[in-house]
């Protein structure tokens, strides 16, 4: 079983739709969960960052983590054409120390999203 699984899509939705993106993982040591947005041939841009289980909301974006099911989600409300990109989930285990060090990120393959006007 792969460590992080993510449906690659592609996913195509009309403008204004609610988008749901998901990842599953197998390593129960993961505690930090991130969603990145990546445009073609660009660096991943951090969207959301959550620790352990629960929800986090930031504008039109909501991240959910269910550690018991090893399942994380990103919801995008009122999707816009500018949201069209590849969305990557990433996760890591414990922090290394109090100086800001985090363990390596393990990424999903990414879901390509297109929002049509």
């Amino acid at each position, binding site marked *: 079983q792969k460590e992080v699984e993510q449906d690659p899509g592609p996913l195509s939705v009309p403008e204004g739709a609610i988008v749901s993106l998901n990842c599953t993982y197998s390593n129960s040591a993961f505690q*930090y969960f*991130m969603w*990145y947005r990546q445009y073609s*041939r*660009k*660096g*991943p*841009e*951090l969207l959301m*960052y959550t620790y352990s289980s629960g929800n986090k909301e930031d504008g039109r974006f909501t991240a959910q983590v269910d550690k018991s099911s090893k399942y994380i989600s990103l919801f995008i409300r009122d999707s816009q054409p500018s949201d069209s990109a590849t969305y*990557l989930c*990433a996760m890591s285990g414990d*922090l*290394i120390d109090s*100086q*800001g*060090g*985090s*363990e*390596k*990120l*393990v*990424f*999903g*393959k*990414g879901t390509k999203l297109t929002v049509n006007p």
Partner: protein
Amino acid sequence: EPEVTQTPSHQVTQMGQEVILRCVPISNHLYFYWYRQILGQKVEFLVSFYNNEISEKSEIFDDQFSVERPDGSNFTLKIRSTKLEDSAMYFCAVTGYSYEQYFGPGTRLTVT
């Protein structure tokens, strides 16, 4: 505003040549990471670097790869003898006193 810039944005090299990819943090960062992404594939961890030492490296990071911070500012990834399969996007990432990793824009390496 990006936390880090990378140079060059695109590097074309012949197989067997050495390449050096550079990462320049905008502000103070303590931890540095290199990742790569082969076209159409996952972003993969290569190495993490703290206090002038490698903290962790993946099995991809073999003897052909090295990292250093030569002047206390730039952070470099060197590939000594490039192979065709080294063609990929290479991303530098940083953390500071927050634990999130912020990625640079990447260097596209093409080995011919």
